[in-house]
Every structure is written in structure tokens, then in C-alpha cells.
């Protein structure tokens, strides 16, 4: 007879073994290793919650300390490889296979381990892809998640960094898996229930609160006048022309400069209320002046940002907040929002080739993807029109019946022609291709594919790739804004001037922008302290960003 309940029985066994170390659902931090050794089976698929910001660090330390004779050959399926312990488990043999999305701080070590064969890599995913596979062929047997507090029944308050948690729990708890949550505190009543208790099997009171890194803070004091110029070009040449109301900003000084120019330069251009009203965005501190000036209608967040809690609580008309008043973020929903409901993604990158492919990979690091590939792609499943989307579609497609036309999402790369340490941004060949060869990846890790990119903005001008009609025009448009890099100097000057006459390449003067006007004085806030003042004292910056 067919056994239809083998998974459920295995779950019951795991729970029974785990209960030996728990009082009800509650497990002391000192027993975390015993708990994990009791509930895990060799070869299990495990999600060790590593988000952009919130890390299940106490459980990560416990997993890394498990006896490899009992716990081995795990298949890790998690979005972030961020902590050293996330890779330590592969050195001890506790884990063997890996499917993940992002490994920023561990990018160098992960490349070495891939090269050395210590990790069997499934694939590097975008967030939405990995989340999708949680429900198809990478469903976790055990999820180790993180929250701020829980009650004794397991009701979980994630705090403002909800991030991946609901997605991970949904896939695990409803498919016979076991969910273990680490929390900073066990309380009688949680401020709000982010995850209902019947989806959480064990609660570990962590020995210390989980660490959150301020990833999304850019100090206005470090912004350059080049970045101000590029922000002016983006606002006047793209935001104003396409009437971009719904958008997502990548992190970086260029996009932060745009946020700080809205209340000054944007106001002067009469754009308030017409652009940048609805956002899919982490709560960037640099958005505070635009919010306070009435530019921003609403913001949905992937995660939160250190120091923004009190400010967000005081602006519930703008942010999504719970009954307790604090931010409710959700990476899966916000990624979906950025993909389908935003008309523009603008972000930065390290390398762009002659076809417009871009990558943040350097030779020795596998940093993974995160959200940019989804944000920075044209969703073919989109059906609802907007003026922005339609205008971009018309620019890309000139023949055929308008009723059968697809719109286009605007995907903008905002880069200086030379990056950090004067490394050229524009290259013949992406380092990502070298890396793929070296590490045996089937696909080169391309962040945004050339056919998704619609505009490239540099200090030299804007290249509109939508208007290019063939590969040669596209190459010359890219060379035409590549400045004094080898790529830029290799341009066909006559062809670039021809493209300029057609509005495909536009210089600051073509946009009516005087480069000498690109002054830091235009920034609505010139320092972190200015942001604190804008927020009425509600923004509480972390120590590394203070100069007072």
C-alpha cells in the first residue's frame, strides 16, 4: 500500500526528538546544538535564515558546532551567505550542497571554496527565483529563522526586518517541515504576530541580539559633484521625460543623490507630485527630505534600515506598518512589487560591456545576485499599462499594430565612467565570464542583461538604448557615454554625433544642464546630521555615521 504520510511521520519523529531539549516550545540557547542534532537528518534541506540584514546568527553558530558524525551532507537553501558560519558548515562537512542568492561579504571565500570543490553548488539565484523554488523543488525540511521576540506558544514578532521570514516559514511549515526560531527575547505577549505560533515548533532564546548592518545608509557628506550632475541628468532626462511615478532605487551614492535632489532641483523643475511618488524601497535615510517635503505618497520595503524605526513609526501614511506601529517589510512581496508594479529601476554596477550586459562580479568574488536582476528586468508577464511603460514601449518598437504593443520597463544604469581606484566601468569583456570559466559555472553571473537595459547615465551623458535600431548603434551609444575609458576613446565620433542628433546620446547641455551648476549646495541634506534635522530628530543614525 502506498505510504502517503511518510513526511508527516518523519516530522513527528523530529519533534519528539527535539522536545527532549525544550520546555514546551522554548529551548535555552545553551541547548541549541543538542536541539539541532536531534531534529536534523543527514541530507536534509535546511534554510538557515540569512537575509540582507537580519541573521539567525545564534542558530548559525549552533549549526556550525554540530557533530559532523551526526549532522552531515545538508543541502543549504537560503538567500544570504553573509556570516562566516554560513560557510564554516561546508568546511566541517555538516553541509555539502548549496543553493543561494547573495553572498556579498563572503564573496571571496565562497569563490575559493567553489574552486576547491568544498561546496557542491546548485545555482546562484535571484531572490524571487529561490523563493519560487522553495515551493517547487527546494522545499526546506528544517527552517532556522530569526525574530525579535516570541511568546511561549511560538507566536513570533520579527521586528521591522521581517524580510524573508514569512516566505521561508510558509514553504517549510506547510510541507511537513520543522521551524526553529531564534529570538532576542521571550515575552508574555508579542507586540504583533508576524508568524502565527502554530507554524513555529521551537523557540530558542538567543544569547545575544542578532546583529543588523546598516546596508542602506549613504552619507550625504561623501557625495561628489559628479554624482550630483548625474542625478540632475537622471531627473531631467529620464524621470521628467517619462513621468516616472512608481519606482525602485538600487543602493549607491548616485541614487541617493537623486533622492536628495528631489526637494531642491526636482522642485525647481516643477516635478513635485508628478514623479517619484510610489516606491518599492528599503527605508533609505536619504529619502527623508523628499518624504518631509511631501513628494512621497508611499513606500513598501524589502527590509528595514538601522536607525529608521522611530521615523517610520511616525509616518504610517507613507510606510506599511503593523498594529503595533512598527514597519512590516516583506522581501518576496516587495520584490514582486518592484518587478511588476514599478515602471523604473535605477541602480549602479561595476562593469558594463559593449552590449550593455552588466555585472558586479570581479575575478575572485562570487557576490551573487540579490534583488537587482528582478528589479532590473522587463517583466514579460506584465499586462497593465501606464504612460511611462507605454512611452518606453513605443520608443522600442516602431512597427506593428499599437493594440498589440508591449510596454517596456525602464532599466537604468547610473555609473561613473571610472569607478573606485579609477578602474574603468566600461569593458570589452565582463570579468564574470572569466569567473564562470574558472569555477565551472554554466552561466556567467550577469546582473542585468543588455536587452533589459534601456538607459545608461554617466557624467558624460545619457545613452537611450531603446532608440537604437541595431547592435552597432547600441555599441556606439554605449561608447558615446563611456568617457575617457578605452571603450569611450574607441568610439566612432561621427556615428556618436549622428546618434546625438537623433537624441540617442544626450549631453548635459542637450538637456539644458550646465555642469557648473552641479554643486553640493543642491543636496537637500549635506550630512547625516541634516537628515536627523529633516526627520525632526526621529532618525537615529548608527555610530559609524555620526560626526557629533
Amino acid at each position, binding site marked *: 500500500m502506498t505510504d502517503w504520510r511518510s513526511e508527516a511521520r518523519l516530522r513527528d519523529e523530529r519533534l519528539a526528538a527535539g522536545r527532549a531539549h525544550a520546555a514546551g516550545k522554548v529551548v535555552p540557547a545553551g541547548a541549541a546544538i543538542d536541539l539541532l542534532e536531534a531534529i536534523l537528518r543527514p541530507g536534509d534541506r535546511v534554510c538557515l535564515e540569512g537575509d540582507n540584514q537580519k541573521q539567525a546568527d545564534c542558530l548559525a553558530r549552533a549549526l556550525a558546532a554540530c557533530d559532523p558524525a551526526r549532522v552531515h551532507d545538508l543541502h543549504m537553501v537560503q538567500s544570504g551567505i553573509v556570516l562566516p558560519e554560513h560557510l564554516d558548515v561546508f568546511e566541517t562537512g555538516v553541509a555539502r550542497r548549496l543553493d543561494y542568492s547573495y553572498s556579498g561579504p563572503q564573496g571571496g571565500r565562497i569563490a575559493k571554496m567553489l574552486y576547491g570543490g568544498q561546496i557542491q553548488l546548485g545555482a546562484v539565484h535571484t531572490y524571487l527565483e529561490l523563493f519560487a523554488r522553495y515551493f517547487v523543488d527546494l522545499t526546506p525540511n528544517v527552517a532556522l529563522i530569526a525574530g525579535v521576540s516570541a511568546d511561549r506558544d511560538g507566536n513570533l514578532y520579527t521586528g521591522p526586518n521581517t524580510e524573508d521570514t514569512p516566505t521561508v516559514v510558509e514553504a517549510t511549515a506547510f510541507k511537513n517541515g520543522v521551524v526553529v526560531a531564534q529570538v532576542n527575547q521571550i515575552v508574555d505577549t508579542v507586540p504583533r504576530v508576524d508568524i502565527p505560533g502554530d507554524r513555529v515548533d521551537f523557540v530558542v532564546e538567543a544569547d545575544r541580539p542578532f546583529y543588523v548592518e546598516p546596508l542602506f545608509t549613504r552619507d550625504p557628506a561623501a557625495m561628489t559633484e559628479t554624482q550630483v550632475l548625474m542625478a540632475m541628468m537622471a531627473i531631467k532626462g529620464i524621470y521628467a521625460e517619462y513621468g516616472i511615478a512608481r519606482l525602485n532605487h538600487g543602493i549607491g551614492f548616485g541614487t541617493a543623490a537623486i533622492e536628495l535632489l528631489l526637494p531642491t532641483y526636482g522642485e525647481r523643475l516643477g516635478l513635485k507630485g508628478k514623479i517619484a511618488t510610489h516606491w518599492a524601497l528599503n527605508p533609505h535615510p536619504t529619502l527623508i527630505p523628499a518624504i518631509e517635503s511631501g513628494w512621497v505618497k508611499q513606500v513598501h520595503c524589502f527590509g528595514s534600515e538601522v536607525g529608521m524605526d522611530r521615523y517610520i513609526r511616525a509616518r504610517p501614511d507613507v510606510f506599511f506598518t503593523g498594529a503595533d506601529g512598527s514597519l512590516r517589510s516583506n522581501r518576496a512581496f516587495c520584490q514582486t512589487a518592484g518587478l511588476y508594479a514599478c515602471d523604473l529601476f535605477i541602480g549602479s554596477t561595476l562593469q558594463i560591456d559593449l552590449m550593455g550586459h552588466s555585472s558586479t562580479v570581479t575575478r575572485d568574488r562570487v557576490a551573487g545576485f540579490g534583488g537587482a536582476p528582478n528589479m532590473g528586468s522587463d517583466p514579460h508577464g506584465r499586462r497593465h499599462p501606464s504612460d511611462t511603460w507605454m512611452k518606453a514601449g513605443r520608443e522600442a518598437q516602431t512597427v506593428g499594430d499599437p493594440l498589440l504593443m508591449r510596454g517596456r520597463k525602464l532599466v537604468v544604469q547610473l555609473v561613473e565612467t571610472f569607478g573606485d581606484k579609477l578602474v574603468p566601468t566600461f569593458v570589452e569583456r565582463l570579468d564574470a565570464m572569466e569567473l564562470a570559466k574558472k569555477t565551472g559555472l554554466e552561466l556567467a553571473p550577469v546582473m542585468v542583461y543588455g536587452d533589459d537595459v534601456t538607459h545608461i547615465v554617466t557624467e558624460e551623458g545619457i545613452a537611450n538604448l531603446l532608440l537604437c535600431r541595431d547592435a552597432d548603434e547600441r555599441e556606439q551609444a554605449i561608447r558615446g557615454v563611456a568617457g575617457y575609458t578605452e571603450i569611450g576613446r574607441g568610439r566612432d565620433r561621427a556615428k556618436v554625433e549622428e546618434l546625438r542628433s537623433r537624441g540617442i546620446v544626450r549631453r548635459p547641455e542637450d538637456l539644458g544642464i550646465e555642469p*557648473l*551648476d552641479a*554643486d*553640493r*549646495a*543642491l543636496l537637500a541634506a*549635506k*550630512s547625516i*546630521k541634516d537628515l*536627523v534635522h529633516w526627520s525632526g*530628530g526621529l532618525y537615529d543614525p548608527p*555610530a*559609524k*555615521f*555620526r*560626526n*557629533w
Partner: protein
Amino acid sequence: MSPASTDPQALSWYEASARQRVAALADPGSFREFLGPTERVTSPHLPLFDLPRAFDDGIVVGRATLDGKPVLVAAQEGRFMGGAFGEVHGAKLIGLLRAALDVRPAAVLILFDTGGVRLQEANAGETAIAEAMRAIADLRAAGVPVIGLIGGRAGAYGGGGLIAGTCSRLAVSEGGRISVSGPEVIETNKGAEEFDSRDRALVWRTMGGKHRRLIGGADAFADDTVAAFRAAALDLIARAPAFDLATLEAEQARLEARIARFGDCRDATEIWARLGVNDPEAVPAMTTAAFDETAARVEEAHHDAR
């Protein structure tokens, strides 16, 4: 250029270039530069290291009037090599200070913005620091006040901190920092447990304008505008101390008392508490008005020695 770049009321001292500071600080149109960039007196050493030079070697010197009175002014450009002292840079400052002995202006103003001596021309830089301190002592003995204004990105570090210590009076803003060894130097030598240079709140608590004002290391606290520094400079010129044996003995006594009283403190907040500040934790976030009230109640901040 937008109005915010030139209006002294709005122009941020921290944001402004050395030239913008001087132009907006002095009476309008009164500044005359000596050895300006068109003369192209540049560093003879930097090309040996394949490093770019600046036509003014990172310092602007000249004469101007302040409220109608003649002054000599030197302003360091913190954005060129961190405002560091090289041979030409130092010679321009020393030349200005020695000229003051002949010209006898109402005051000499030094707008510090420096990390100290330029490593590529260290001997010349160190010599310049010593000569500048000697020249300031001579000037003060002759009755010419030398006022230091500190609120730039680079602060007044290394030899700049030493020269600041010889001035008649100092004005500092919240962003300004005064010290000799910089945060990274201390961390490198003593470890991050002793001093974490990335903890910027700690750096400013220890070396920043508010702390220097509260312990009497600076004599005025200015808002971060050129107008506020101008007002502070005028005020300090009017109450420069005499440079005599009594002043120096009082200064020595003050410094000995300071180390005895605060030598065991682990953090600036402990010092502020001993100085009688009610809520030391609140000091960093205080507005200028609230801070001025706090400083007014702290005796140490009004010691007249120098």
C-alpha cells in the same frame, strides 16, 4: 553658482572651499591674495612621487579687512592632500606670520583644515610647524592676536593641532576636530579596544568641537556657517589674552589641573559629568543654543589662560 554657495549666512563652513571661506569671512571684496594660484608656486617634491600638485599648494594667504580693520588671513584647503603641510604650504603661512610683525594688523586669522604634515615632504613640513609656532609666539608677544578657526573636514590634526595650541584664541564648530594623533593613528598603535576609529560618535566625543569647547580647549563654539565664524572671530579678537608670564603660568596650572582632574576618565561623557554637565549623554545631539547654555555653566570653558 547657486546663492547658497556665496551667502555667508547660508554657506556651510564645513562644505566651503578655503577660497570660499576667506571670501565670505572678510568684508565683501576686501581680500587680496599673496602668491595666488596664477603665480603657480607649487611643491617641488610631489612630482618625485608622481603626485598631482595644486597651484596654491593647498593654502590661501593674503590680507583683508574684518569689520573695517586690517587683518592677515591664511586658509588651508582640506580637499588638497588633507590640507597637509609641505614646504611651500608651510612657507606661505610662515611668511604671512612674519610679515604681520612688520604690518601689525588688528589680528591674524588662521583657518585650519589639516591632517598635519605631508608625508612626502615631512622634514620641510615639520620644520614649518616649528617655525610657525615660533612666529606666533613672536606675534603674540608683540600684541597681535592670532585667532584659529576650526570647522573643516580635515580638522586640525598633527602639527596643525600643535600650532592651534599656540594661538591666542580658537573658535570651533561641531564638525571641527582638534587633536595631535588622529583616530586611525591611535587605533593602529594602541588597538581598536583602546580607540575604535570607525566609531565616529566616539571620535567626535573625544576630539570634536563640543568637547574642546567644554574643557576650554577652544574659546568659542560656532554654528557651521561662515557668518557664525566671522562673528566668533570678531568677538575673540576683542578678548585676546595678554601674552606674559602670568598668562603662561596660569596656562601651565590649568593643564596640570586638567590631567589631575580627568586623567582617569575613560570617555568624554565622564569628563563632562565631572565638569557639572547634568545630562552628558545629551550633549552630542544638542543644538548650538542649548549647547551654549550648557557651556556657559561650565567654569573650565571660561578659563582665561592661553
